[in-house]
C-alpha cells in the first residue's frame, strides 16, 4: 500500500497539487478511500484529516466504504425517472436482497448505486453494469444480467 501511496504523492507534487487529485487516485487504485491512506497523506502533507474528509464527502464519486466486486449503477436522470428507473432499483434491491439503507450485498459481490445522469437519455432507462452501458432496460433483462454475474 505504502508504495502506491508514495507514487500518488510524487504525482501530487508534480501536478499543481490538490486534494481532489489525491482522492481520485486513491479511488482509482483501491475502489474506495481507505481511512489509513487518508491519515497517511494528512501526515505527509501536514493537512488536517478533516480537510480530506470534507472534500471526500462533498463529491458523489468518493466512497468511504469498500464497494462490491460488481458495480451496478442505475441512472436516475429525468428521462430515466419517467421511464421507470425506480422500478429497476426496487427489483435490484429485492433480487440481491440488499436491506434498505445499504448498497452492497453481504458477501460483497454487488453494489447498487444511483447516478444523477449518464447522459444517455435517449435510450432510457439506463443501467451501467461494470462500466458497460445498457439502454432500454427492463427488470427482466436486468435480472438476467445479474444471474450471469452470480
Amino acid at each position, binding site marked *: 500500500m505504502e508504495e502506491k501511496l508514495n507514487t500518488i504523492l510524487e504525482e501530487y507534487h508534480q501536478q499543481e497539487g490538490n486534494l481532489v487529485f489525491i482522492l481520485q487516485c486513491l479511488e482509482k487504485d483501491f475502489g474506495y478511500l481507505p481511512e489509513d491512506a487518508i491519515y497517511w497523506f494528512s501526515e505527509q502533507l501536514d493537512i488536517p484529516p478533516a480537510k480530506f474528509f470534507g472534500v471526500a464527502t462533498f*463529491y458523489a464519486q468518493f466512497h468511504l466504504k469498500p464497494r462490491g466486486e460488481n458495480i451496478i449503477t442505475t441512472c436516475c436522470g*429525468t428521462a430515466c425517472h419517467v421511464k421507470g428507473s425506480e422500478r429497476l432499483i426496487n427489483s435490484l434491491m429485492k433480487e440481491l436482497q440488499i436491506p434498505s439503507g445499504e448498497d452492497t450485498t453481504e458477501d460483497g459481490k454487488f453494489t447498487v448505486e444511483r447516478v444523477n445522469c449518464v447522459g444517455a437519455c*435517449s435510450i432510457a432507462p439506463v443501467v451501467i453494469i461494470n462500466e458497460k452501458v445498457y439502454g432500454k432496460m427492463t427488470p427482466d433483462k436486468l435480472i438476467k444480467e445479474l444471474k450471469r454475474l452470480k
Partner: protein
Amino acid sequence: MQKEVVIKICMGTGGIAAGGKEVMQAFIEELKQQGIDATVEKHCSVHQVGCRGFCARDVLVDVIMNGEKTTYQFIKPDMVPRIVEEHIVGGVVVDEWAVKEDYHAFHEKQVKVVLADCGEIDPESIDSYIERGGYEALKRVLSEMSPEEVIKVIKDSGLRGRGGAGFPTGLKWEFARQKNSDTKYIICNADEGDPGAFMDRSIIEGNPHSVIEGMVIGAYAIGAKTGYVYIRAEYPLAVERLKIALAQAKEKKFLGENILGKDFSFEIKIKLGAGAFVCGEETALIASIEGRRGMPRAKPPFPVEKGLWGKPTVINNVETLANVPYIIRNGASWFAQYGTEKSKGTKVFALTGKVKNTGLIEVPMGISLREIIYDIGGGIEGDRRLKAVQTGGPSGGCIPESMIDISVDYESLQKVGSIVGSGGMVVMDETDCMVNIARYFLEFTQTESCGKCVPCRIGTKRLLEILTRITDGRGRPGDIDLLLILSEDIKAGSLCGLGQTAPNPVLSTIKYFRDEYEAHIHDKRCPAGVCKNLLTYTILEEFCKGCTMCARVCPAGAIVGEKKKPHRIVQEICIKCGACFETCKFKAIRKG
C-alpha cells in the same frame, strides 16, 4: 465518382450501448473474409463516427457508395453479412433495413451548426476534422485577425452562453481581454450535470476538435496561456476522445508552444469532475479545480476579474465553444441569420421522455415547441396525450400543453417560468404525475445543495418533505400556499443559481397543474396513476380468465383465486408494485 466505399458506424455512448462495437467488428471481419476490396475493385473503409442524434434507432450505419449515402437503422452484427453481400457487392440497397421517411422527418426541421460534423467525422482522427475545414478558423485568426477583431466577430454574431444563463460570449471575452494581468485562464465547462441533458457529452464524443479549436481561439482573444476542460468523470468515453484529440492537436501544432509558428502559446489540461452538480456554477467549478469543496461564493467579483487562482478567467460551456470555429469560418452574419432578435443561432436540445423520436437535435432558436415535439419528435409515444414539456432540468420548469406554440428562445421560455438551460427537454404525457415530477427534481436539488446558504440547504429539504407527504397521501390543506411561500424565500435567500432556481419545478407545476396538487391533497387521488400510496389495483371479474399469471408474479402473495376462475386482490396485503398490472394479458386489472 468516389473510389471508396465508406461505412460509418455510430459510436457514441448510445451507439456503443446498442452494440456499435460489435457491428463495426462484424463489418471489418466480413469485408476481410470475403476479400470484398478485390471483388468490387474499390477500397472499403469502416469508420466510427460520433452521435448523429437519433440514438433511439441505434446502431445506425451509413453506407456511402458511388457518392450515394444509405442509412441503415437498428443494425445488429448478424445483419452485417447481408448488407455486405447485397448492397456493397450486389449494389442493391437492403430496403427493409434502411431508414424510412420518418428518419428524414426527424432531420428536416433541424439546422446543424455545432452538430454539422458530428456523425460525419471520425472523432479520433484529426485529419477527418481537417478534411471538413477544421482548424481553418484558427489559421485565419492567427494569421489575419487581432484579438479585438475576433471578439468583434463573436459579439456581432450574437452568440450567447449555451450553458443556461445566456450571457453574450463576445462581451465576456471583451471583459477578460480588458483585464490587465500576466496570467489569464479559459475554462471549458463540460460538467454537464443537468439530468436529461447530454449535448456536451455528444459534442465531445462526436467532434472534440471543434471544442479545442474554439478554446484556442478564445484563449487568443482574451490572452490566456492555459486552459482547463472541467469534465464529468461519468463521461468516460468523452474523456478518452478528448485526450486523444488533445494529443493530436499538439502534434499538429494547433496547441502548445508557438502555435502554427506564431508568437502564441497555449496549453489545455483536463480536470475530472468528482460528481457534484453545483460545480457547474462558475465559482464552484473554480473551487473544485483548485481542489476544494465545490462551493459557490458571492459575485462580484466575477471570474473575469478574479477567477482561477485569483486570475481573470473566462468560463464557457462546451456548446458555446464548439460554435466559435464555425462562426469565424462562415462569418457573424451567417450565424446571426438563424434565431430570433435576441437569441441568435441554433441550440442543441436533448429530446427525451415520452416522445416517439428521442435523441439529440439542433434547431434554430425561435422554433416552436410544437414543431420540436410533433415534427421532429414524431409525436407522443403510444399516441397518448401530451401533458407538459420540462425544459432546463432542475432549474427549469414544466410548460403545459396549452402553451406548446411558444417560441423556444431564452426570453420566451423565461417568461413562462422555465428556462432554455443547458438544453434538456423531457416530454411528459398523461401518465406522468406533475407532483411526482416536482418531487423528483426537489430530491435532486436537495441532495445537490452544497449547504452553504441556509434557505437552500434547509428550504429544499422542507420543500421535499411537503411534496413527499402530498404524494404519499398525507397532504394537508394549506400545503400549496406553504410551498409557494417557501419557494419565494429560497429564491430570494440563495447565493447561486442552484438555490435561486431550485423551486422553479415546484412553482411552474403549481402554476399550471394546481388541480393535480389539489386532487392529491383533498381527494387523496393521483390523476395520472403514478403515486403508489394513492393507488388501488382491482381485478375486473368480467375480463379475468383465471390464468394465474398475476398470482404468480405478485411478490406479496396478495392475489387469490382458483385456476380458470376470476382472481381477487387482497388490498390489505397488496404493496402496489404494479407487477400484476403489467403481466395481465387481458387488461383485467384496473389501476386507479
